[in-house]
Each structure stands twice: as structure tokens, then as C-alpha cells.
């Protein structure tokens, strides 16, 4: 009886939810604390910088708004990829996935550009508390986007194999989507709390 269950790739679970989905959600709860601590540090050190530049000196809100839109659109393409995976539209799925990856890369490009711009205006890790807490917070967010790009990239490569992602493809895509959307909502918070609130 175990063997027949296994063949379906769907085990009986006590809560009736998939183990991997549950794992990802609990992991995201943990990530809340990770970014919560980084944001706490940023806010605690707000106003503790002894030298310029301060946020008002370097932030380029229109530029960051643009990269925020890029990430927002990537969430949209991601959700399409999940939809396509569930409804078995392989072409749409691959296209959406590719778009998501590219948009993620564009976002990273914006971030690299922004970091270099701030650097040229005299802000680096050691300049002041703003520099340290800003770069570490947004840098770790960037690392998450980068990991997401690798994650989705491997999904894309996997989906191009002969059997695609296999019978659990929709589930795998949905879990990858959870991660990607989480990275997006962290940015929603960062954009508001770090960039927009004076």
C-alpha cells in the first residue's frame, strides 16, 4: 500500500497539506525575523550617523520606484508561471519563468547601479551608521533576489528536460513562487520604510 501511494508522488499527511509547502511557509516565518532584525537595526541607527551623507542626500526615489515596479511586475510573471504550471501550459510557463528571471536580473542591475551611485557620492559601509545598515539590509535582500534567480533558473532548466518538472511540477513551481513573492513583499516593506518614510 505504501508503494502505491509513493507512485502517485502524494503521501498521506496528517494535516492534508504537502510537506514541502509547509516547510516553505515555516521557513518564510523564519525569514520574517531575519529581515525584521535587519530593519530594526536600520531604524535604530536612523539619526545616529555622525557624518553625511544621509538618506536625503543620496536617495533617488524615481530610480528606486522604477526598480520597485520591475520587482512588482516580476511577481506578476511569477504568478503566471505558477498558473501555467498548474494548468499545464508549458510554453506559457517557460516564458513567464524566463521573464521573471530577467526582471529579477534587471532589479539586481538597478541595485548594483544604485550601490555604485551611492558609493560615488561618498557612502560606503564604513562612512556612517546609515551606510552600514542600509547596505547590509538591501544587500541581503539583493542576495535573496540572486538566490531566487538561481532557484528559478534551475526550475527553467529542469522544465526543459524531457519529462519537464514531473508530476509534481505545479507544486514545485508554487513553492518557488512563494519564495519569490516573499522577496517581493520584503521589498514592499523596505521601499516604504527605508526610502519613503522621512
Amino acid at each position, binding site marked *: 500500500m*505504501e*508503494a502505491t501511494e*509513493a*507512485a502517485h*508522488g502524494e503521501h498521506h*499527511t*496528517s*494535516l492534508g*497539506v504537502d*510537506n514541502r509547502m*509547509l*516547510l516553505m511557509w*515555516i*521557513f518564510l*516565518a*523564519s*525569514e520574517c*525575523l*531575519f529581515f*525584521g*532584525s*535587519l530593519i530594526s*537595526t536600520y531604524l*535604530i*541607527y536612523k539619526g*545616529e*550617523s*555622525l557624518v553625511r551623507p544621509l538618506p536625503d542626500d543620496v536617495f533617488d526615489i524615481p530610480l528606486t520606484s522604477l526598480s520597485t515596479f520591475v520587482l512588482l511586475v516580476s511577481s506578476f510573471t511569477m504568478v503566471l508561471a505558477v498558473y501555467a504550471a498548474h494548468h499545464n501550459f508549458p510554453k506559457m510557463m517557460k516564458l513567464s519563468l524566463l521573464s521573471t528571471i530577467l526582471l529579477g536580473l534587471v532589479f539586481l542591475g538597478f541595485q548594483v547601479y544604485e550601490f555604485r551611485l551611492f558609493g560615488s557620492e561618498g557612502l*560606503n*559601509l*564604513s562612512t*556612517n*551608521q546609515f*551606510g*552600514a*545598515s542600509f547596505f*547590509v539590509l538591501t544587500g*541581503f535582500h539583493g542576495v535573496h533576489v540572486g538566490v531566487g534567480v*538561481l532557484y528559478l533558473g*534551475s526550475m527553467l532548466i*529542469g522544465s526543459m528536460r524531457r519529462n519537464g518538472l514531473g508530476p509534481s511540477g505545479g507544486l514545485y513551481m508554487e513553492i518557488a513562487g512563494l519564495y519569490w513573492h516573499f522577496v517581493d513583499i520584503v521589498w514592499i516593506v523596505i521601499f516604504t520604510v527605508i526610502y519613503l518614510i522621512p
Partner: protein
Amino acid sequence: MATATGTLPQVQEETTIWTWLTTVDHKKIGTMYGISGFAFFLLAGLEALIIRTQLAVPNGAVVDADRYNQLFTMHALTMIFLGIMPLGAAFFNYFLPLMIGARDVAFPRLNALSYWVFLGGALLLTSSFIFGGAPDGGWFAYAPLSDEEFSPGAGLDFYAIGLLILGTSSLMASLNFAVTVFNMRAPGMSMMRLPVFIWMMLVVNFLLILSLPVITVALVQLVFDRNFTTNFFTPAEGGDPILWQHLFWVFAHPEVYVLILPSMGIVSEVLPVFSRKPLFGYAAIVFAGVAIGVLGFAVWSHHMFTTGLGTVPQIVFTASTMAIAVPTGIKIFNWMGTLYGGSIHFNTAMYFAVSFIALFTIGGISGVMHASPPVDSQQQDTYFIVAHIHYVLFGGAIVGIFSGLYYWFPKMTGRFLDERLGKIHFWLMFIGMNITFFPMHFLGLSGMPRRIYTYDADLGWETWNMVATIGSYMLALSIIVFLVNFFWTMRKEPTATDNPWDAPTLEWATSSPPPEHDFDVIPEVRDRDPLWYDRDHGIEKVEPPSEMHIHLPPPSYFPLLIGLGVLLLGVGVLSHLALTALGVVIVIYSIWGWALEPTE
């Protein structure tokens, strides 16, 4: 592909080094956790012995100041992260699937990965003694002492990188276990029928899942301060060392419960079995454990009462801290209620379990004493606190772990640890522990600060320091007795039946030691004490079908490989970044291989 086919007794596969290195069997992984945890427990004990020898007489000259500071730092780090935590994880690994009626944890390969990453982190941290000096800033590594300016050596980098790696391991293990508890329970095993040990470990897993990211952030900031020019904790540049303390204790207070809750779970299993009656107030004990976990996140600043916290925060954190005494008290009373009216069979496991109640009570009560900030202002950072934490962590955590070891040993090995040697072990440890740690209360009240490598004569500290040192040697002797017992027992023939203690929980429904697939037939749970229910209602064990085809996950070498990659990542940060790059490559390659590896 490991597929156990046939009927009992299961054909034992030949075990080689390779089977251990690639195993994904929770019992083998639990065993490896247990052996490594015990080895590090011995190492930490050795460090403690050197510390006690140094302090036996005033102006001791066994080690110099710097070495002493390394020793007490590493004693704490080793005991906490490499001794007690993995020993708890060992039991949990071994017994979680058995106690909830599952064939394995939810993610067997992730489980193996957690172990290998743990081992890598543990070896990295310990190797600091050889490479450039061990961390010497205390396990709390308060900034700015831990900053590069005041600790220029590599020790604190080993600390930060080592703890980051160990944290990764704990996070993966906790996620895995939490999912397993929620989702892999046998039919009928509702949450309120879970054994208390499982409940306490579930709380532990959530404590870790939710607190490890906080210390991760703090450690990252420390690494950046020390290596990448930031000034998070440098006061002259606007940084604040108090931030480190907050982030550290937001993690480290729940961590204390991570250490003690497993033992609370273990004695909650042992006491009813040998009292021959069910646990008194199961629901209250479970809710008290959950309450301790929740409150554990609201009390961290009581470690910082003397840092100039201010009046209102002192009052707030006093109130929340004292609140924890209530669920703790509930647990103690319920354990006593379990003993009351029982028919207590005193074997070594029960000796340890009952003494746990007494010793933990002493540690808990002294904890309430310095929950009051004015009292704490005299006791903070003195030997009074050293006494307190050792009553909780030795009298509590370690004593509980030994209780579990004597209790579960027949299940794990099919052999009973010798009772006579066990009782010698118990009495030496019980007396030795009280002789070692009780006098530390007196020393603290006499004004002896912690973490001093030397002290003057004529301060009234000589006698009790000598007594404590004698006690510590008794403790060492008790451990030797235990080791003798262990090795002697392992040479005996296995004689244990499935359920030699007539215990009520599911791990006793299978053979001793359990087969690789844990249960021939997944048991059905009809009560909180399933085996007692079945016994009293004459329900026979379901016979396995003559043709069994049980699917087990195949062994995998990718966990080991990723563990190696993670270790290289850390080593690279400490030595040459090229190694980090190599580590990243190995990790990415192995994750890819892992994803493509067939598991069906």
C-alpha cells in the same frame, strides 16, 4: 535503493563507513548526533575541569589569563551548541518518527544534511584552539570587546563563522522536525495525543526557527564590523554595543529553553512509566511548555538589568520574567502529582528523573530571585549566576538527558545499561553536582565575580572554591563510571524485548532495536497512552502481512557533499576567499544533484 522486503527479523544489511556517510535513516543520524554530542560534552567537561583546577586555590597558575578566557568561552560554547543541543537532537532524531508512528522524518536527506553541517561547524569552532587561538570574549561576545580593535586575533571570527554554520544546521533540522510533527503522525495521533517529549521538542523547534535569524543578523553585523569596515558596534562612530546585547539575548534567552525543554520532555516520559500511572495534567504540562516558549521571547532584557536599561524597561522585563515562573511551577507540581499515588519503580532512569525535579527546582527558584533587578544588581555576573545556570543546565538538562539515555538505551541497542554501575554513576553525579555547584551560591554572595582567572586570598573564597573543585572531579569520575558501563554493556548480548518497561508510547511497539523501516505496520493510535490502552483493552498488535514491500528513501551522498561545501564556505571566510568560492560551487552542484536524485 533500500527496500526492505521480507518478514521479521529483518535482514541486517552490512554496515560500512559508507553506509554511515550516506545514510538518511533518522536512527543512524540520531546515533551520530548522540556520539558527536557526547564527545563534545566530554571535551567541554575537560575544559571545565581545567577551569576548576585553576580556581582550586587563590592565585592559581595552571593556565594563564588568556588561555583561561578561551577555556571558559569554549566551555560554554561547546556545552551549549555542541553538547546539550545535539544530544537533545539525537533523541529527537531517533525517537520522533518512532513516537509518532512514522517511518522517517519528513525530509530524510535534509536531516542528514543538518548533521553534516553541524559536524562541520563544530569541528571548525573547536579547531580554533589549533589555528590562532579560540574565541575568548565569552559565549555572549559582547561588543566592543569582540570588535577587531580589542580582539584582533582570529578567535572571534571562528566564533561568528562557527555559530553561523551551526545556526544553519539547527534551522534546517528544526524546519524538518516541525513539518514532521505536524504532518507525519500515525492515524489517530492527534496533536493532543502527542507524547510530551514531542511537544516540548516542537516548542524547541519553533524557538530555534524564530530566534536563529536574529542571532544570524547579529553575527553578520559582527563579521562585517570585524572584516568589512562597518561600525555597527563601535561607539566612537555612532554604533551602539547595546544593540549587540539586545540581538544576542533575543536569541540566547529562547536558547536557554532550547536546552532545558527537551529534558522536561524526557522526564515527562520517564516519570509516568516508572510510577505506573499516566502523566498528571498532560494538557497543563503541554500548555505550560508552549507558554514558556511564548514568554521566552518577551524576557530577553533581564540579562541586561545592569546595563542602564532604565526604570520602565526594568519593570516591564521583571514582570514578564516572573510570569515564566508560573508555567514552570505548573510543570513541577504536575510531575509531583505524577509521583503521588504511584507505584514507583526506582531504576537509574527514574533516579535521574526524580532528581531532575529537585535540582531543576533549585535552579528555577534562584532564577526567580534574580528576576528582581535590585537583587540582580548584586548577583549579576557573580558565581551566584554560575550556580543558577548550572542547576538549570546540569541539574536540569544533563540529568534529564542521562535519564533519557538509561530509559531508551534498550530500545536503541537492545541492551540494558547495567543497573549497579548506573546507580553508582547516579550517586556520584548527584552528589558531585551538588558539591560543585551549590557552593557557588555562597561564592556569589561573597562577591566573587564570574569569568575571573584568578583571585586573591583573604576574600573568604578559598574554602568553597576548593570544595567546588573536588566536586567537579567527582563529576568526572561519575562520567568515567558511565563510560565503563556503556562499553561493558555494548559487549553483552542484546536481551531487550519490544517493551521491557511496559511503557505507553509508540516507540515501544516495535522491536529493540527498531528495524530500518521502524514499524512493520504503522500502528493506530486510540489514546494518549496508546500501548497502555491497547494492553488494557486487549487489542492485539497487528501482524505484518506475509509479503511486505516497504519503500524507504535511498542513501545519498549529497548531504555530506553539501556539508563539506558549507564548511569550505566558512573556512574560506577565515582563510582564503578562493575556498569560499569552491564551497559555493560544491553547494550549487550538490543541490542540483540532490534535486535530480530519484527518491522514489
